């Protein structure tokens, strides 16, 4: 019996170690004064200092954050409209069509999204750069917001709307006083997801960004292609901590909304 109980624990431990090892490996060597990802020489904070002194990098971080916030706000608005639209469509066939179209961008590989948006922006004459990246991020975040908001709308008892009407609320009052407050947790979750998708995106941005504009992911890629540089390690430690902070934040948001509805694996 004893032996039997041990193996699962060992197996799970190995999986956990493997999953976390590369991340901690990165973080560990961010303190290496030797400047390589092997043979730890001595402790240093030089690489962090370098990150914070690199104004170009800081501008990129700022760009990434601004772009993420803007795209999250706009896509949340469009996404809430989308969820309401899908909810209120009465014909089942139209509803299914809308849902399928909504999911196209969720299941499509990033290369396809990136390549097709590149064509689109070129055709309609949008300069590649901040605008194109922002539009692309809004575009691929909208369906995520819809997916996060729709279940909240669907779980809402239709009797609540009837009740509000019954108590004298006009159509707009029903929306502002009942529906929107009710789905607020879903809206927050959607906003949060849109934010993280935007912060994290590499492939789509890589396609539609021009020469002048870069986001953090794209910058990491081009740095990594040049080989090992411990500023990336330092950067990844910071990003890891920020991510953990966001995950905890999201955890509390979704706990308020009752259950980890949207917690999923991410690229």
């Amino acid at each position, binding site marked *: 019996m004893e032996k039997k109980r041990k193996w699962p624990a060992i197996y799970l431990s190995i999986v956990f170690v493997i999953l976390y090892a590369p991340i901690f490996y990165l973080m560990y060597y961010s303190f290496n004064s030797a400047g390589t990802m092997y043979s730890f020489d001595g402790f240093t904070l030089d690489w962090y200092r370098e990150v914070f002194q690199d104004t170009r990098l800081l501008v990129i971080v700022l760009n990434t954050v601004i772009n993420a916030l803007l795209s999250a706000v706009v896509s949340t608005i469009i996404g809430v409209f989308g969820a309401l639209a899908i909810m209120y469509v009465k014909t089942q066939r139209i509803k299914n069509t809308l849902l399928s179209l909504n999911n196209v961008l969720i299941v499509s590989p990033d290369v396809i999204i990136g390549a097709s948006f590149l064509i689109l922006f070129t055709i309609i004459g949008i300069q590649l750069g901040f605008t194109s990246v922002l539009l692309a991020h809004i575009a691929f975040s909208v369906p995520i917001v819809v997916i996060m908001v729709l279940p909240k709308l669907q779980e809402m008892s239709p009797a609540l709307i009837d009740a509000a009407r019954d*108590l*004298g609320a006009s159509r707009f009052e029903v929306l502002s006083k009942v529906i929107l407050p009710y789905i607020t947790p879903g809206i927050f979750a959607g906003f949060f997801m849109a934010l993280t998708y935007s912060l994290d995106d590499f492939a789509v941005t890589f396609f539609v960004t021009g020469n002048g504009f870069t986001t953090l992911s794209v910058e990491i890629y081009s740095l990594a292609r040049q080989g090992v540089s411990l500023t990336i390690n330092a950067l990844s430690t910071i990003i890891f901590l920020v991510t953990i902070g966001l995950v905890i934040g999201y955890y509390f948001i979704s706990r308020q909304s009752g259950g980890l509805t949207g917690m999923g694996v991410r690229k």
Partner: protein
Amino acid sequence: MSDNTIIQFDQVTKKFDDAIVLDSVSFKIERGKFYTLLGPSGCGKTTILRLIAGFTEPSSGSIYFDGKVINDVPANKRQVNTVFQDYALFPHLNVFENVAFGLKIKKMKKAVIGEKVKEALKFVNLEGYENREINEMSGGQRQRVAIARAIVNEPEVILLDEPLSALDLKLRTEMQYELRELQQRLGITFIFVTHDQEEALAMSDEIFVLNHGIIQQSGTPTDIYDEPINRFVADFIGESNITAGVMIEDYKVSFAGKEFICVDRGLNSNEPIEIVIRPEDLAITVRDEGKLRVRVDSQLFRGVHYEICCYDEFENEWLVHSTKKATVGEEIGLTFDSEAIHVMRFNESEEEFDKRLEAYVEKDHAN
């Protein structure tokens, strides 16, 4: 239209796609009474409620409120309020905000709202619960909040859509008393929807029994219980023994192979009919002294009485509620008064039925 009528349906039909949910229904609702719409699920009772509330529109026919057609008046402009089946309390608002919802929409002054909400909560015995969240309230308490939210708007009519169905038996009985009492205190019209016949009998001034989108019978609880119009009503309201029979002549009916004296008259002679005898109207006696001779098939102890299932020689089932115990397998006799026999004609309309019953009463008076 009499002054006391508040709501009237005139040949109202409601179709969903091709399915007819209400089939040319007409009735009047008077002020200050407790009405119950009773019927199995899908009979159209909730549809009537939703039509009154304004959540759906009739396919044809007119609905009058206070003498005016309200077919096109949206729900938020109607002077009725609903207590919903699952209460439909707003989960993001607390008790006070829920009850105040309708008043805030009307843009009343804050002080007035506070006053009215307090009063309404007092009415439903929920003083001091203003700041509770909805999910902190028990089922019975939510029920009261829902009622308070409706009555605070001082509507002329309150619609209740199976509001007790989610409660357990004991609480349900308690709330039946409370609702009845509340209606009498407020003096406004209650229209109550339920599929529970006991609930309907206990609370109502008037019951509408519905089936297949048609009002089968309307009347006071005792009328409907004692004189069901047809097999459906007899079966749905209480337990009944229903058997095919023949009306031989006035006051003489035959069923179960024998002839019996009854109180019904005015039917065609030798008209095939159905008779109803309630289980509690049957009494057990020794084999040869009964009007019917039956064999006891099974027996259940129900607390207040024994429920005894018997069969006569024609294999008709007879259900008896008796405080006396019987022995399974034994042959016993059943007796009953001639008033206990209730005769139902096939396809009799409510109008004809009422006329027939009125004739009996006149006859009684004449005697």
